[in-house]
């Protein structure tokens, strides 16, 4: 694979994951621009989590190439992992450890200097100071999400991979998390790749959208671009068009999938 330009945070080419007879991810290609927030959308089983897990090295691809932050993976994981981080509501932090203990452990794993200062900074940013000495398992869903976010930001990652970061959160907390992530991305120049089922979230936060169906990327573009291309009012309607293979989007998506595979 050709080396990705410096302003590409993730470059994926021909990425495939097969579990026996099941093709979970089917030769996808995409780029994530540095400093952008990119959404990976699709119905359940579309291949979003598998794609994110392959970029993180939690799942070994069957074939294809991944470059992250200019490094070839999996060969250079040891150079990339200190610079990225991950958050998912489906992977927990140890419940019996306090918030402070969890953050200290992860700060140690990332080899951070001035751990106390970093934790204090994160706690202040994420409004966690009063929970630092509470066991993580005793927190509410919203508080736990903030702790997971603090863990995901502990190393101030250049690249953040998020799997449904606002799932199971009340609208207020979800809105707060979105604002925080947008600000982080802007202030730090970081890139985010997130899987989401919340179309309003995607419209609001994302610079680019990758639409997945049955393991393939069937369309991509900026949210506004997709909405006008599909002749719809919002991303929710675009999503339904693509997921159900209906409306104007059905032909567009099928045409794009076919040409991508011919290519």
């Amino acid at each position: 694979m050709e080396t990705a330009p410096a302003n590409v945070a993730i470059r994926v080419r021909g990425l495939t994951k097969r579990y026996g007879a099941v093709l979970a991810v089917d030769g996808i290609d995409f780029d994530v621009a540095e400093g952008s927030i990119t959404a990976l959308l699709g119905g359940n089983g579309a291949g979003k989590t598998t794609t994110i897990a392959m970029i993180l090295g939690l799942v070994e691809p069957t074939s294809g190439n991944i470059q992250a932050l200019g490094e070839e993976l999996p060969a250079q994981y040891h150079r990339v992992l200190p610079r990225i981080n991950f958050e998912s509501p489906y992977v927990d932090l140890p419940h019996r450890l306090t918030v402070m203990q969890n953050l200290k452990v992860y700060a140690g794993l990332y080899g951070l200097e001035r751990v106390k200062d970093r934790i204090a900074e994160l706690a202040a940013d994420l409004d966690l100071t009063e929970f630092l000495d509470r066991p993580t398992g005793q927190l509410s869903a919203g508080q736990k999400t903030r702790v997971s976010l603090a863990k995901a930001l502990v190393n101030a990652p250049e690249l953040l991979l998020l799997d449904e970061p606002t799932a199971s959160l009340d609208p207020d907390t979800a809105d707060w998390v979105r604002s925080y992530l947008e600000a982080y991305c802007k202030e730090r120049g970081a890139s985010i790749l997130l899987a989401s089922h919340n179309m309003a979230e995607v419209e609001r936060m994302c610079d680019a959208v990758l639409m997945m169906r049955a393991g393939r990327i069937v369309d991509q573009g900026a949210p506004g671009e997709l909405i006008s291309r599909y002749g719809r009012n919002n991303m929710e309607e675009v999503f339904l068009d693509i997921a159900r293979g209906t409306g104007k989007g059905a032909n567009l998506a099928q045409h794009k999938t076919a040409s991508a595979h011919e290519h």
Partner: protein
Amino acid sequence: MSIDIKEPKRRHVKLAQRDSAVRRVAAMVLRYGYLIQGSIPRVLDLWYWPTLQMVMWGFITTFLTQNSSFFAQAFGVLLGAVMLWDVMFRGQMGFALSFFEEIWSRNLGHLLVTPLRPREFIYALLTMSVIRTAFGIFPSTLLAIWFFGFNVYGLGLMLVAFFVCLIMAGWSMGLLVSGMVLRWGMGAESLAWALIFGLAPLCAVYYPVSSLPVWVQFISWSLPPSYVFEGMRAVMIDHVLRLDLLAAAFGLNIIYFSAASWWFLNCLKEARREGRLLQVGE
């Protein structure tokens, strides 16, 4: 397919980080330390069984000493065997339970996307195995002196050699069982307990290898602990240092430990290939 690449909004500001394996292993040890420190039942569990075992076998030894000329001459053989067997048992459980903590808390996915490398994860588990074993057994050795006048430290430097050989055997078992859990899920967890108890009769803990049926002796001599327990009896009964037995135990341990490490790392690779790391523990 590609999207338009824009100029980044702002250059990334890096935090000071040090690429240090020691620091990562220390962070993992700290994580397990927090877990034990924050749970009185876990601390009591570390002490309870070794102490209970020691007390029970102490009374059996006292009874046998009073009624058997053999045990009268070889006082402490049974107690010594119980304590040394516990080194292997605690060594294995110290490794496996620390690993299971990651599965139970569904934290493995987080850990494996940090800079922690698989071999550093193993080093952390080995360190915890030593800490948990020493912490669990030390009080019972002091109680044995106080209650029964049996001083296991009388074995001198040989005790260190026995400890190293037995804890290495425990690590091999821990790696084997943890690999099984990665491969077959938490259904294999019960093997952590069952396997080591199944080995006990073959390791000649309380009796010499020669008392086993001939075909079982072949199996027994293929296990490192058998050499350690024979060596212990040689010291305590015959007052002879059998370095040949120690060398054999150590050599076999190297083979088993290498094979078990390969197995564990292979199971981890397999779990990545099969996409099980995100689901493990569910």
